[in-house]
């Protein structure tokens, strides 16, 4: 991380040839862009899990309401929908970040000079990376605590920990997207 920062600063001062770190060499630019494409592709692939979860949420609620109309109750609809919601959001984290889908205020930064803009982007990407690495790690630990304690849902008595692992997984998968943002900033590829 620190090495990355130092290399990145060098990017502004030294010609490409002098840079000793492979990832920052000019020749490796194409491969970085390729890695970025893979990561974006993987983020979209993982997003299918989120999409499926939302579709299932809709189906479960509809079946539940229609069944209630005929005085049949679907056990555990309430908790199932909540758990599906957790999967939907966790697994859409990488895609949303890759699509630059989060709300941010950028009218001020747009007026900055290019180096300043890149510096701001580097700070933001690094901040997000550290934040989600922490959330991923903590969620993983939280899941382990739940597994050890045998926490189950109230109606179906489903174990809760796999869904917490799901949230941890979503956060972990978000990290490569954020890391790529950071690397691309150092290479001077500005993200919008």
């Amino acid at each position: 991380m620190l090495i990355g920062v130092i290399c990145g600063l060098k990017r502004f001062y030294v010609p490409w040839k002098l840079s000793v770190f492979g990832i920052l060499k000019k020749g490796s630019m194409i491969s970085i862009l390729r890695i970025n494409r893979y990561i974006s592709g993987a983020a979209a692939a993982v997003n299918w899990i989120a999409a499926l979860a939302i579709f299932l949420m809709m189906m479960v609620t509809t079946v539940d309401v229609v069944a209630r109309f005929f005085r049949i109750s679907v056990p555990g609809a309430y908790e199932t929908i909540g758990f599906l919601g957790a999967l939907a959001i966790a697994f859409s984290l990488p895609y949303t970040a890759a699509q630059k889908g989060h709300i941010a205020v950028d009218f001020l930064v747009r007026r900055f000079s290019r180096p300043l803009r890149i510096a701001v982007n580097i700070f933001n990407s690094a901040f997000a990376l550290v934040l989600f690495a922490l959330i991923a790690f903590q969620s993983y630990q939280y899941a382990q605590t739940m597994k050890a304690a045998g926490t189950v849902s109230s109606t179906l008595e489903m174990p809760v920990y796999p869904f917490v692992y799901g949230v941890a997984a979503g956060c972990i998968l978000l990290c490569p997207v954020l890391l790529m943002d950071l690397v691309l900033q150092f290479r001077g590829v500005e993200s919008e």
Partner: protein
Amino acid sequence: MTPTTVGIIGIVALFGLIFFRMPVGYLMAGIGMIGFASIVSFDAALSLMARDVFSVFSSYSLTVIPLFVFMGQIAFHSGISTRLFDAAYKFVGHVPGGLAIATIGACAAFSAICGSTNATAATMGAATLPEMKRYNYKPELATGVVAAGGSLGILIPPSVVFIVYGILTEQSIGKLFIAGLLPGLLLMVLFTAAIRIWTWMRPELGPGGEKASWGEKVRSLSGLVETLVIFAVVMGGLFKGIFTPTEAGGIGAFATLVVALIRRNLDWNGFVQALFETTRITCMILVIVAGATIFSRFMAVTRIPYDIAGWITGFDLAPAAIIFFIILVYFVGGCFIDALALIMLTIPIFFPVVMELGYDPIWFGVVIVLVTQIGVITPPVGVNVYVVSGVARDVPLNTIFRGVIPLLIAMIIATLLLIPFPWIALYLPGLL
């Protein structure tokens, strides 16, 4: 450092860094975590953060968001907007500015199944801008109407902003939904009046079209029927307490999907796009909710929200002056920050004050939604204007901003009417 000092530093850092393109949700979570850690302990902050993230992501009451977003996305991708516009056009197309009024009418109808201002502006823009161009409407009228009409999407239920406000302030989402209905219709009338006055002063802006026969008018209504049926089932069931907001969203999404499939308006591609857009919008909103939750933990340990409430009410100011000041903050803030993000940022601070002053929480929700919607069409961050310029690429941004002005005046009048006449918002919820 006292907790209050840490809290003030946190608030200043939040409102400072927000202007540096940091995603709002990430920023609130990060500052909330750091602040909580520096007052309580680092370990406590970390474990609280993981718990909050999971409890927000898996919260049943928040699943209402993806379901209503999905409903709107299906409506967006299935051409319902075109049928709504056709129906409205058959009725008012012949008067000067009639197409613009039809656009407002179609926006209002579309809002009944779509809870997002941007989606309403985008979908109505795609459906109506080419028509208005065909009838020689000037771009400033055409684009201004579409950008402003989107704000009906937020006032007329369902509405994503009301859902978030309801969850943050523990108010009934059903009551908020129905409270938005009359102000939404009032705004529709004011928009129509603005267009009539504007085209009366400058008839060249929107020449009238040919008059439709009564037979055509009646036939065009079939496009409206399905939307009204879905709206009646979803909102009726919600208001009657037959189902929860989440169930209303699920049923609404399912019904809209069925209508789109029967009408053969939705192909696999559109369906996948609707789903993926839904995941993206949901993730964006829920990340802010999670961030706001973590940030509010930090605020709670500093006790600042209570202090501010006490401090402001300690001033010897008339409640009306304070409420006016708060509305002004939303008005100015709305020009720079996305409506949803702004509400989540400020509700923890202002809501206790407003309650302390004895105002109605439902009324306050309607007022700030209306005020932040003004920000959606004003520079520099007028999101709807950017959305419309994305649809109408040949129209300069300045033209759209100019076209919005008469409708902006209508929105300001609506807000000013809501302050002395709170029953506009509170009459319908009172019937529940």
